[in-house]
């Protein structure tokens, strides 16, 4: 059932030429240089330290690496990270567990 609705939504998105993140609830990552990262539609914090921030997502994880990371603001769906950002990495989980 879920897969059907998902497929339907994906199809609608392509037909109507809508941005995928709006329709599919995908994370949206905005980066400003190496200073700020805003992640929308996350599913919680898995790990946080000044060097590494791991965020849970619908289908995987997002890793932000850097130095002196600070979460400027956190809401139910949005994280705003500041610091010296060195890397942003997506780890899709897919069907296989890690």
């Amino acid at each position, binding site marked *: 059932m879920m897969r059907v609705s998902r497929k339907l939504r994906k199809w609608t998105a392509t037909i109507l030429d809508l941005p995928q993140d709006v329709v599919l609830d995908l994370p949206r990552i905005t980066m400003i240089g190496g200073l700020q990262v805003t992640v929308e539609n996350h599913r*919680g*914090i*898995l*790990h*946080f*330290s*000044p060097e590494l921030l791991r965020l849970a997502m619908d289908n995987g994880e997002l890793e932000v690496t850097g130095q*002196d*990371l*600070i*979460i*400027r*603001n*956190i*809401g*139910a769906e949005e994280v705003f990270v500041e610091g010296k950002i060195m890397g942003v990495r997506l780890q899709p989980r897919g069907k296989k567990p890690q």
Partner: protein
Amino acid sequence: MKGTWVAMLRGYVGVKLIGGEAEAFLNAATSERIGLWNIAFTPRGELTFGIMVSDFFRLRPVLRRNGSRTRIISRHGLPFRMARLSRRKTFAGGMLAFVAALFILSTMVWEVKIEGNSAIPEEKIRQMARAEGIYAYQWSFRLQNAASLSQRLALRLPEAAWVGVDKTGTSIKITVIDSTKPENKAPASPRHLVAKTDAVITRVIAENGRPKVERNDRVRKGDILISGLLGDEKHSKAVVSKGKVMGLVWHEFRIESPLSTKTRNLTGASQDRGYLIIGNRALQISGYGGHDFADSQTRTTVNRAQLWNRWLPFGTMKEHELEVVEIEKKLTPAEAKEAGLKQARAELLAKGGQDAIIKAEKILHEQTENGKVLLTVLFEMEQSIEVERPILEASIE
């Protein structure tokens, strides 16, 4: 942090998390929709964050579940400031007292200005205004509105045509406009116009009364020129006679005119000296080593120090010394004579009144002796000769 000033108004705290797992705590707080900000680790590995005061109390169940405690490290915002202020009672009291004093003082009248160049003495206007309650250091809420005040003040000052009262802030301006009155003429009693001196009449203009003389008549001092008595012997009336009578009058002048005149002239050389005044002593501070003028004229200006409206006992004084030279001028007898006549004419015209004209002049005698020219001159001058003389009651009957 939503809107810094909202956060300041409601208060926020900086918190340190002790014990428990940081990630689990953050997830739990976010799912409870508790807003956190500036989440960071201290170098010692402790999690610090900012939180609104109201959210801080909602954090308690989350903390309990997570098995951690918090320590507040900093407090910001109005509620904390108020709490601190409530501990400093005198300070808070002082602030309140200041606001109260400012308010009370601003409800007072501080100044009453009186404007309009009125003949009514300012002291009287002030007195009347005081009776209506307008005076300095009066409460302005005890005053009536400006319109009725000006009306009542106008009733108290009947001499004024219009009285305006204008209140701006803590000062009141009273404008008084005088009603213009016709010029006050002293009532004249019945009178004649008589001759001031011996003269030959040249012109008679009678506005009121009966002219007794004509052109070319010769009059003596005290003769009636324009009579104030009208009618015949039986029916007579005394009036105020008015008019103008011009006549030729002779003046004999003795003139002494010196053959040499001395004038003091400025040579243009000058020097300045500055002094410092303390009490009634002056200390020269500049202008040393000037010339010594044989004859000089000194102009002194004193500048005394002033503190508001009080004179202080010190100041500066400036002396401007101008060199003067005396020039003696020799005159020929003719020049001396002319100079003497000129002065005599000027004197005569000043004595004769406004419409005096010198008709003729004749030198009767001329003599030069002892460095002087002696002249006797006869001037013939046309001038007004009338003078008033009241008619006595007894003379009417």
